[in-house]
């Protein structure tokens, strides 16, 4: 089922012509409006007119997550304040988040591509879509919300959490599609099973799950527990939010990237050299229709490969494979992006605490858990239980504030966190997230 068949099945040459046009306009836009891009292009001796073919994208400068941090909050915006109508945010690598700004037109495009994603799952105006992604600065909730509404579906903006209420609404309102993180879907499914809930009481038939990596094994489990078909959606706040790419129900193998809005490259994460289709490397995305915060060659640090072969569904937009991992140490915990360096920034300067820590991530009953171990200095500043508990509390709060996640904190003895080659290991992820 297509939301926008002419575009989704556009001939490659027409699509590429459109891409070039939009890329050129985007390069002009950022050159005129974003000092960082103008400077970087000037350093390379480039002017916007140097982009004559799609292959010329390789001449353009990269954008790194650190650029979003350094230019926080508005430095990369290419539209005046008056034209920005929405802000979203995601975790930065230190204390501050990274923010993205959207114009009216950006939001229309976002809704359009999410509506296409729903089409990939055969969800349309006849459906009731329960959005159990978090609403707020996180792009998941509002992104799916606007897209489902654009598709004409009846939207239930329940947001995440409160599984009992989710199930009540799902049954009472007859929700036919569920949008949330795959781990939350699994949690809902297991609570159904544990309460011997008869699936016939639900009308649920489709699931659109993303914002964190998941495996085929998890898909099988979710489909079985909820009696639905589960599909993978991809996106990131920096380039828009969910909806950059979506798996189609016909193929269920790889996610179509909406190439009329995003240009994708796969690069060798070490050298930055382009890799041929089919080879796994770092996904790099350029937005070519965004006005608020267009990004050139954004390094996602997500590992995947391009599937160039035509898909059985008839869409001509190329696919990326289900994510294979990360090139950096970013973790996704309960749908929230977490960088170990954020923890470091949070605990820095607290007396009695060494800047050595370990994030222990696990999944218990389908809920991600995060334990942060922080080393005490050899010189114990306290001799009272209460003081140590206060320190524990202070450190925990500092971390929770930066991560926006509840954590279990453990103050550990000096030098107890394992070091390898002098560098301490910062993450122990016990989950099994990638196939």
């Amino acid at each position, binding site marked *: 089922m297509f939301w926008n068949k002419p575009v989704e099945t556009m001939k490659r040459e027409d699509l590429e012509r459109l891409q070039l046009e939009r890329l050129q306009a985007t390069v002009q836009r950022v050159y005129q409006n974003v000092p960082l891009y103008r400077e970087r292009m000037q350093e390379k001796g480039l002017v916007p007119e140097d982009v004559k073919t799609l292959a010329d994208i390789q001449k353009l400068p990269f954008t790194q997550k650190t650029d979003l941090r350094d230019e926080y909050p508005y430095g990369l915006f290419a539209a005046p304040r008056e034209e920005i109508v929405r802000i979203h945010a995601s975790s930065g690598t230190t204390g501050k988040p990274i923010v993205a700004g959207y114009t009216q037109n950006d939001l229309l495009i976002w809704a359009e591509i999410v509506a296409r994603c729903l089409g990939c799952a055969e969800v349309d105006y006849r459906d009731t879509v329960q959005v159990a992604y978090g609403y707020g600065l996180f792009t998941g909730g509002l992104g799916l919300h606007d897209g489902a509404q654009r598709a004409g579906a009846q939207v239930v903006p329940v947001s995440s959490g409160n599984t009992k209420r989710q199930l009540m609404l799902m049954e009472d309102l007859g929700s036919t599609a569920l949008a949330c993180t795959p781990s939350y879907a699994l949690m809902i499914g297991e609570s159904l099973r544990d309460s011997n809930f008869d699936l016939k009481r639900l009308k649920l038939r489709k699931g659109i799950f993303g914002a964190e990596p998941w495996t085929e094994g998890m898909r099988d489990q979710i489909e079985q527990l909820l009696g639905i078909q589960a599909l993978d959606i991809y996106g990131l706040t920096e380039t828009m939010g969910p909806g950059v790419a979506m798996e189609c129900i016909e193929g269920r193998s790889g996610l179509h990237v909406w190439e009329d809005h995003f240009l994708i490259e796969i690069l060798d994460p070490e050298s930055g050299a382009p890799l041929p289709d089919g080879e796994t490397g770092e996904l790099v995305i350029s937005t070519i229709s965004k006005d608020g915060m267009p990004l050139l060659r954004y390094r996602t640090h997500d590992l995947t490969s391009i599937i160039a072969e035509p898909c059985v569904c008839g869409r001509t937009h190329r696919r990326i494979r289900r994510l294979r991992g990360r090139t950096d140490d970013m973790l996704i915990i309960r749908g929230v992006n977490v960088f170990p360096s954020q923890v470091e920034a949070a605990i820095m300067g607290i007396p009695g605490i060494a800047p050595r820590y370990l994030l222990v991530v696990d999944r218990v009953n389908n809920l991600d858990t995060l334990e942060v171990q922080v080393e005490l200095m*050899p*010189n*114990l500043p306290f001799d009272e239980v209460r003081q140590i508990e206060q320190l524990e509390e202070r450190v925990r709060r500092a971390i929770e504030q930066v991560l926006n996640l509840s954590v279990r904190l453990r103050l550990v003895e000096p030098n107890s966190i394992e070091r390898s080659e002098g560098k301490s290991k910062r993450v122990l992820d016990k989950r099994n997230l990638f196939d």
Partner: protein
Amino acid sequence: MFIQQLSVYIENHQGRLADFCALLGGGGIDLSALSIADTSNFGLIRAIVSDNDKALSLLQQNGFAASLTPVLAVSVADAPSGLANVLQILREGGFSIEYLYSFMRRINHEAIILFRIDKPEEAAGLLLKKGIRLLSQEEIAR
């Protein structure tokens, strides 16, 4: 007037207290008193030892978070009422006790109570004035 107490943080791992004792024993350090306060997450060892500086550096070099804390060692001959008397004096003086623990000495059946008090100097002065005997480091750690 004060004696130095060793305060050591230990995680609730099995055998961690044994590690602590073995480390001091290996260093030829004697323990005169030992108390452990614990929570579900961690424990806090308080000990009076024969050689503070040696014990501290040994512990810190071996992955323990430790420090020295001044405490008052009060001798009470007749344990319960003796303690009640000391507590009464401290209460009247307006002092607050952070914690206390006791140990018995076999020699003259003397009970020794270790106090951690908010204003130790003033508290010590008051106790001495009231005729309470405070023990020195040498008297305790022998």
